[in-house]
């Protein structure tokens, strides 16, 4: 059965402003069942009345008539985007479309799983009045708020609904998806790890924008076929941003077309310990690469004829966006567990792309150049990784057994500690304990010069804790554990190592020192703001954990921090 649903192309005000049609259709084909709400096995929309707390009726599902295969949801008037039934269907459709974008064979090539122990992501489209929207692992939910437009404070009817912004829904769904892929980032205390969450969420919104044929047509029509400058693609959550800060010239929550960097003294240098700002360095870097990909494809399709560049710009954008999506999302599966830096993600990008497209270096060169240019790494060599090599012990490993059996996985990790970078014990020190993560069996589609190829991979991840100094002053424990780990990607057919990546930076002392310093600074700042709380200071007067704090516990002189990303989503907003 197929279900056709409408969804917002962008957001209500921007659609009107740019004369873009407000909605477009999307066909859902991969869900087990459809119920009123909408509710499916993986997504449920719960539209609460924010005043009374009651659950409002969900939009009715209309199954296909006999002999037909197309079902739909009963939206009375799909031009009324503020109606209850449209709002419910829009969040549902946008979240699902975002999920499908990740799951396709040409991207991750597998079904997503959530970081929580339940199959269903709950979406609350009108969570209450607040200038915010967030993903929260503990409640398995996306909560999208609304607020009175500050430009029209006396007009309560001019509300900004974050649930009507494709960017915002995609951004929050991106957080939920990334949490399932890289759950360690949720408890990370490295600013760059937290920033990675934000950057990927913003890039998810960008890629969702690229998915819209209508938006591609309209934007390229306005820009003569270019995405070099700020457009509806690079501007994240325009309606929201414009409402929150009406005086800005461009007006958006963030602009991916930026020059933000980590070069001390540069006017575009951002604060290293503020994850949202920091995220713009990474997303800006990758957006620049996307622009280059688009330009290159335009050149190629136009065959050197400058007059054809506009007419091929749409195709170039569609194809380029797909390549870009593979580059940035496939790297997430290669990301090592634990606290990761931008450099780790950069290496994961290079490894994933190199393993898949060994002969096509151009995109990787651009990425390396841009990472160096923005001082995310010292030099290109910092992003070099070895891929597609043989490791003898793998030749005898039963990969199916490795995927299915925890025992086999632990046995393999223990026997190959050195290869996987797991610290060995010594005469007076026991071996460092480690944790093997659930293995993934993925089949991805690659577009090689000679056509499409399917590549099956086993993704093996292992993590362990390191201890480092916690330089936060006398109120806090002197040390803290840091989770690090290694990802091993194995080609299922050849048993060659497609990539081996570790977040253990002990062999990269400069990166290690830099990340430690960033952690200290961010934790001190959070403590100073009263956001980071130790011990029973995390409990409120109702004896339950406070929602607006990050909890830290002290055991055996170690400070362990939980849910820093949750705080980032909830208290800092989008």
């Amino acid at each position, binding site marked *: 059965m197929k279900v056709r649903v409408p969804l917002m192309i962008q957001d209500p005000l921007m659609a009107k402003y740019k004369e873009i049609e407000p909605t477009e259709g999307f066909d859902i084909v991969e869900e087990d*069942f459809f*119920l*009123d*709400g909408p*509710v*499916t*096995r993986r997504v*449920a929309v*719960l539209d*609460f009345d*924010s005043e*009374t*707390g*009651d*659950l409002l009726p*969900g939009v009715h599902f209309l199954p296909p008539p006999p002999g037909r295969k197309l079902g739909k949801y009963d939206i009375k008037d799909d031009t009324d985007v503020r109606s209850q039934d449209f709002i419910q269907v829009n969040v549902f459709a946008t979240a699902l479309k975002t999920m499908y974008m990740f799951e396709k064979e040409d991207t991750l090539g597998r079904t997503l799983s959530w970081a929580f122990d*339940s199959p*269903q992501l*709950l979406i*609350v489209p009108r*969570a*209450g*009045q*607040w200038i*915010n929207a967030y993903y*929260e692992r*503990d*409640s*398995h*939910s996306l*909560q999208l*708020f609304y607020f009175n437009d500050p430009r029209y404070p006396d007009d309560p009817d001019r509300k900004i609904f974050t649930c009507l912004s494709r960017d915002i829904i995609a951004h929050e769904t991106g957080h939920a998806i990334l949490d399932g892929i890289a759950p360690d980032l949720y408890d990370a205390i490295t600013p760059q790890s937290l920033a990675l969450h934000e950057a990927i969420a913003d890039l998810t919104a960008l890629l969702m924008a690229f998915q819209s044929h209508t938006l591609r047509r309209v934007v390229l029509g306005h820009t003569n076929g270019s995405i070099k400058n700020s457009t509806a693609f690079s501007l994240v959550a325009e309606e929201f941003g414009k409402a929150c800060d009406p005086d800005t010239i461009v007006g958006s929550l963030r602009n991916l077309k930026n020059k933000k960097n980590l070069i001390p003294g540069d006017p575009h240098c951002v604060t290293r310990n503020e994850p949202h700002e920091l995220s713009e360095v990474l997303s800006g870097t990758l957006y620049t690469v996307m622009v280059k990909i688009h330009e290159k494809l335009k050149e190629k399709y136009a065959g050197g004829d400058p007059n054809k560049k506009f007419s091929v710009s749409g195709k170039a954008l569609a194809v380029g966006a797909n390549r870009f999506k593979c580059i940035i999302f496939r790297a997430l599966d290669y990301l090592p567990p634990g606290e990761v830096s931008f450099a780790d993600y950069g290496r994961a990008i290079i490894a994933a792309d190199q393993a898949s497209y060994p002969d096509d270096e151009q995109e990787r060169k651009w990425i390396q150049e841009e990472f160096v240019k923005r001082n995310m790494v010292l030099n290109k060599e910092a992003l070099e990784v070895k891929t597609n090599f043989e490791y003898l012990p793998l030749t005898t490993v039963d990969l199916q057994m490795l995927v299915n059996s925890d025992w086999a996985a632990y046995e393999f990790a223990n026997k190959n500690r050195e290869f996987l970078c797991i610290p060995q014990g010594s005469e007076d020190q026991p071996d460092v304990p480690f944790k093997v993560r659930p293995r993934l069996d993925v089949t991805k589609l690659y577009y090689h010069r000679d056509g499409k190829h399917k590549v099956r991979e086993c993704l093996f991840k292992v993590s362990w804790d390191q201890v480092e100094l916690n330089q936060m*002053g*006398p*109120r806090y424990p002197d040390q803290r554990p840091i989770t690090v780990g290694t990802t091993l990607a194995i080609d299922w057919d050849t048993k060659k190592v497609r990539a081996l990546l570790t977040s253990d930076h002990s062999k990269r002392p400069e990166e290690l020192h830099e990340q430690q310093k960033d952690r200290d600074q961010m934790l001190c700042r959070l*403590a*100073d*703001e*009263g956001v980071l709380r130790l011990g*029973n*200071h995390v*409990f*409120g*007067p*109702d*004896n*339950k954990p*406070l*929602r*607006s*704090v990050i909890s830290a516990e002290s055991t055996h002189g170690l400070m362990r921090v939980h849910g820093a990303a949750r705080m980032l989503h*909830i*208290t800092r907003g989008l």
Partner: protein
Amino acid sequence: MDTLRVRVYNVRFGDAILVSVPDRNASGEIENRHILIDVGNILIGEGGANAVFRPVIENILEVLNDHPLDLYVMTHEHLDHVQGLLYASEELGFEIKARYAWLTASAAEEYYEKHPEAKKCLDEARKIYGAIECFLKAVPESQTPWIQTMMLNNDPQSTNDCVKHLRNIADKTTYVYRGCNLTDCHPFYETRFKIWAPEEDTSVYYGRFQPMTLGVTSDQQSRSKPILTVPKPPPGVDAGDFYNLVTMRRQGYSDNLLAIDRAANNTSVVFSLEWRGWKLLFAGDAERRSWKVMNKYDMLKPVHFLKVSHHGSQTGMPDSGLLEKFLPETSPDNRPRSAVVCFYPGSYRNVPDEEVLEKELFPRCNVRYVVSPGCDDVKHVEKGTIPDGGHQDFEFQA
């Protein structure tokens, strides 16, 4: 030899401080002048026992010897700082009068008309307080002693009655803030005062409130008890996940209650008193945000005595960096330094935070506690216990 005395009363969980200053007038004569700071306790539970007020008020009157106070200071509008004098007047028949009074700026009747941003913040806080009050009526079993204490301490109506009384306690009342003109606002000649906080516009002390969907409906007209809405999970949604979500969406009220409490604490009058080389700091219940603002305006200068803020809580104790500015580890002039913490354990959770006091304050000065004897959960009893209604004196010789 002239001696300045700070007398800190044990009113259980609250503040009552009498400062007696030998102040030399223009002709060189010494006049012993008295400043009373606050007087109140938390009203509820053991920390709020009213019996403590009689001996305290009697002692204050004895010291005053039929004279009015020279200066009364109300630090902020919380019952544990303001309700004692109204109680003394109405229940004990003791009237304490003052020549001058300083009340925190936002206690002025017309304050919120002049400060629209602060009004916006206060209105939001009051709205949230009202919603929480309604929720607690609907679900009384969710009240913990701490919630009851905080609700009462921040109850606008009860506080208003006390503040109204205090507005009329003196011949001349000034609503003070950092930078206000204190000329003719006190009778002291030799003694110097400096107001470190609050800011005139108290909106700086409000943070962002958390969203909370308490799910309570109330029919105001019928005045019936509010009812908690219990939504049912729709088909296809796991009931456990659904109710977990509903519960979590309610939880923001606890954060908001603390935020309301914190905003009021941060409006505390924080002032220094300088007398013959001694510098004393009375910090009310200033919390982190107020300390940061004080630092921003370079107010933090070394002192010899500290009335520890907010009963020794973690949030009332500035971090090492700020503390170092007004209570450096090494005394800049080699004079002895001391601090006093007034509290009653079990009234507010984690107040005081003895671990933080131990790490941050103990190495810097001689810390004394004003706490009732026999209280459980006091780690450093050696820092002193004082019987209910009794007092601890700190003396500073010229």
